[in-house]
């Protein structure tokens, strides 16, 4: 069960329209390192985790990623709000406009749609938690790439905030991995003894 809260996790604003930047940021909506994939990856892995703290970390970070997906969509929304067809064409977004007009769509920066193959779920808790740590680092790197691509102070502000969350999540997944490895090791010793 999830309860909707009618506010963003962190307030966002933009200096002005920038459809080209929006078309880059959309990759964090539905690209391989994006927030949709992150939320679904973590929430889905809960069912094969052996310990309560791993289930807790995945539940809480997965839920937060849903909020980040809304934040990324908000940046795209604000950067394209009121942009005319001519503005979209001038930004090289003719094809984007043809398929979606101003609608949100889960795709990477080149328009490749989101696929479930972005999700890893091996059923092995050590492999999955290690995958999640890598996913957080990859998402951090993409946010840094996006920060480099814009001069908009407020867009940078929002992207920096999202980048920082990837660092925190990486830390928590690392701690969860250590706990799971310790527990699996104890179980092994118990069964041998």
């Amino acid at each position, binding site marked *: 069960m999830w*309860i*909707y*809260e*009618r*506010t*963003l*996790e*962190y*307030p*966002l*604003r933009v200096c002005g329209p920038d459809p080209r930047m929006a078309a880059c940021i959309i990759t964090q909506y539905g690209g391989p390192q994006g927030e949709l994939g992150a939320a679904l990856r973590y929430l889905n892995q809960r069912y094969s985790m052996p310990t309560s*703290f791993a289930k*807790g*970390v995945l539940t*809480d*970070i997965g839920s*937060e990623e849903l909020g980040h997906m*809304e934040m990324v*969509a*908000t940046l795209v*929304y*604000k950067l394209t709000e009121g942009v005319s067809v001519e503005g979209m064409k001038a930004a090289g977004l003719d094809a984007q406009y043809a398929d979606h007009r101003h609608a949100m769509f889960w795709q990477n920066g080149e328009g490749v749609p989101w696929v479930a193959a972005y999700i890893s779920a091996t059923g092995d808790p050590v492999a999955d938690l290690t995958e999640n740590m890598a996913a957080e680092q990859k998402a951090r790197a993409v946010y840094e790439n996006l920060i480099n691509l814009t001069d908009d102070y407020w867009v940078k*502000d929002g992207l*920096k*905030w999202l980048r*920082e969350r990837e660092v*925190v*999540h990486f830390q*928590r997944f690392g*701690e*969860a991995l250590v*706990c799971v490895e310790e527990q699996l090791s104890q179980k092994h010793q118990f069964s041998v003894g």
Partner: protein
Amino acid sequence: MNNRDVFPESPAVPLSPSEEGGALARIHDLQFSALELQLYLDTHPQDLGAVDMYNQYHCDLMCCLREYESQHGPLFGNGFSASPRNCWGWLEGPWPWEVNYG
């Protein structure tokens, strides 16, 4: 611990100078702190000092939420917030992606 502490380079001016924006900023800060503690406690559940901090943030947050919602309408769906009696408050005001934090 709040957003401004994590990102000291943010401008000193509040994102939204209105009274509603100020109250919402306080809620954002409290929720952020509570969530950070929640994630921390998931991997450090024996830290009872952090549990106390979490509970304090919970109390402060509930207080701020009640105050905010009584003046500006519901923030939560599914029965967790009341609607004003004279309208269906859920539909009042801009949605999160439409809010102009100017």
